[in-house]
């Protein structure tokens, strides 16, 4: 792999840019690998990358049904934050956020991490108390957040209407080091780095079955034939239930659609991310000028990658009230992703009933921000066979044992 640098640009500039090579190889699968990761989204590629980087395991295949980064990695609103209430969540999301800070240098690929600050508005007294609690929890966890006044909210984001009429802004939880990133670049950067380590990224190859003997996986049947493996990692977000069924176990997961949309591009008007969870919408401005908008999930099981129209209406209604400036904006594109929601709205990074099979799923509506940390923790789990401190609490048996990591109720946040 040739490194990207200012010298590479200069070199290519004098030879008509004919020397750029493909960012990753597209090999045919070998008969067997040490590790197979199913799912070449952000989480799967990050898992493979840290398996190679932290543990020296490079005989790895990453199998993808479609094209890499074409699932939820390409379908999110790119928000990165770590202001969670519970200790295990704060630990893994903060690890992730800190890895994002140097990810462009680590991968030699510009992921355009922009720590512009994330603001979560408090618009009811209940929310004020909740965020004050989160702020204190974050202080103990070593996550830098602060609760700010409505006047400071207005200074940071002048286009915000803080006066109501329905829900005046009473304050906000502000994480200055949160922000956004370039979602596709995260997948591409990891893919390029994995390919450079000799790993095989096999696209357009759907897993049709999981073969096991004596409680251990021997390989997977795919549209490109059987591929053997010593260890299997399932990192497929919305389709985790299907893959688990192939392997013979059930998950505490429901797949639902989450929609997002972007407006036509306008001149720069907001340089922070704002989340308004009471009215339920969140918005930031992309580098191209589009307002990137997200809201709540649909309420029923759905694998179609499109959601119900009334959710768009509800989200925009909430945001027009919060940001009157956008009332005459045209919406340019809308899309949906299949998110995997667990019972406690926290992920699974877990061993499974099959000894050498591991699963990483359940990131629900907030997976993009977690990609580096999730891959880091999953790689440790797969390399050692036992979870490290980041993944330990996220095992799938917590539901049986009643040890939930209860983010949905405790923080009341839109993930």
């Amino acid at each position, binding site marked *: 792999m040739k490194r990207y640098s200012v010298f590479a640009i200069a070199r290519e500039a004098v030879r008509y840019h004919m020397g750029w090579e493909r960012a990753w190889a597209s090999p045919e699968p070998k008969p067997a690998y040490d590790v197979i990761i199913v799912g070449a989204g952000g989480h799967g590629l990050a898992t493979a990358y840290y398996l190679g980087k932290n543990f020296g395991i490079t005989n790895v295949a990453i199998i993808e049904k479609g094209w890499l980064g074409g699932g939820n990695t390409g379908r999110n609103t790119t928000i990165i934050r770590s202001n969670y209430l519970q200790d295990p969540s704060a630990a893994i999301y903060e690890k992730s956020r800190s890895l994002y800070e140097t990810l462009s240098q680590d991968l030699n690929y510009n992921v355009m991490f922009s720590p512009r600050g994330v603001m979560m508005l408090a618009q009811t007294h209940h929310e004020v108390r909740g965020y004050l609690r989160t702020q204190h929890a974050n202080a103990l966890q070593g996550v830098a957040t602060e609760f700010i006044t409505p006047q400071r909210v207005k200074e940071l984001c002048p286009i915000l209407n803080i006066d109501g009429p329905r829900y005046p802004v009473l304050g906000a939880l502000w994480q200055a080091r949160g922000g956004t990133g370039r979602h596709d670049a995260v997948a591409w950067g990891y893919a390029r780095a994995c390919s450079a380590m000799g790993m095989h990224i096999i696209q357009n190859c759907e897993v049709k079955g999981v073969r096991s003997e004596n409680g251990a996986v021997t390989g997977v049947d795919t549209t490109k034939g059987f591929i053997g493996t010593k260890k299997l990692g399932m990192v497929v977000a919305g389709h985790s239930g299907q893959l688990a069924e192939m392997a013979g176990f*059930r998950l*505490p997961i429901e797949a639902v659609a989450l929609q997002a949309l972007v407006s036509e591009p306008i001149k720069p008007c907001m340089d922070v991310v704002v989340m308004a969870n009471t009215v339920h919408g969140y918005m930031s401005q992309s580098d191209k000028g589009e307002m990137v908008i997200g809201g709540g999930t649909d309420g029923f099981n*759905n694998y179609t990658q499109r959601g119900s129209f009334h959710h768009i209406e509800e989200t925009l209604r909430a945001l027009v009230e919060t940001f009157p400036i956008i009332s005459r904006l045209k919406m340019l594109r809308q899309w949906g992703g299949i998110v995997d929601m667990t019972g406690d709205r926290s992920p699974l990074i877990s061993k499974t009933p099959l000894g050498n099979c591991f699963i990483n799923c359940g990131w629900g509506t907030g997976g993009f921000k977690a990609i580096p940390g999730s891959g880091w923790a999953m790689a440790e789990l797969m390399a050692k066979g036992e979870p490290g401190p980041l993944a330990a609490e996220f095992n799938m048996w917590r*539901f049986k044992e009643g040890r939930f990591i209860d983010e949905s109720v405790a923080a009341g946040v839109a993930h």
Partner: protein
Amino acid sequence: MLTLECPYCGVMADETELSPGYEAHLKRFGPGASPEEFEAYMFARKNPKGVHFERWRHSYGCGKWFLAARCTATLEVFGTYPAQVSEPPADIIAKIQARRPDWQPDWKATK
């Protein structure tokens, strides 16, 4: 937008008139059950890509719970039926099999 017929009042109700209740025909376990049974009842879900049976409530109508047979991969609705049954009625099964000849009910095997 999803439209379901309420089997009690016969109204074709838009999704905005309904509240979703997720997987139907769960076998309930209470005090005295093993942790595995209770976990399966509370959390483990079929979450199928294809034919699915769901609970819905006609919350801005008659207020009653009913059940629906639906395809989660295409959003096709096969039919709705009252909730006072432990498994889908024969006419709903017939409607599903008319549209999905390969589909077989799995509850005889699991319950």
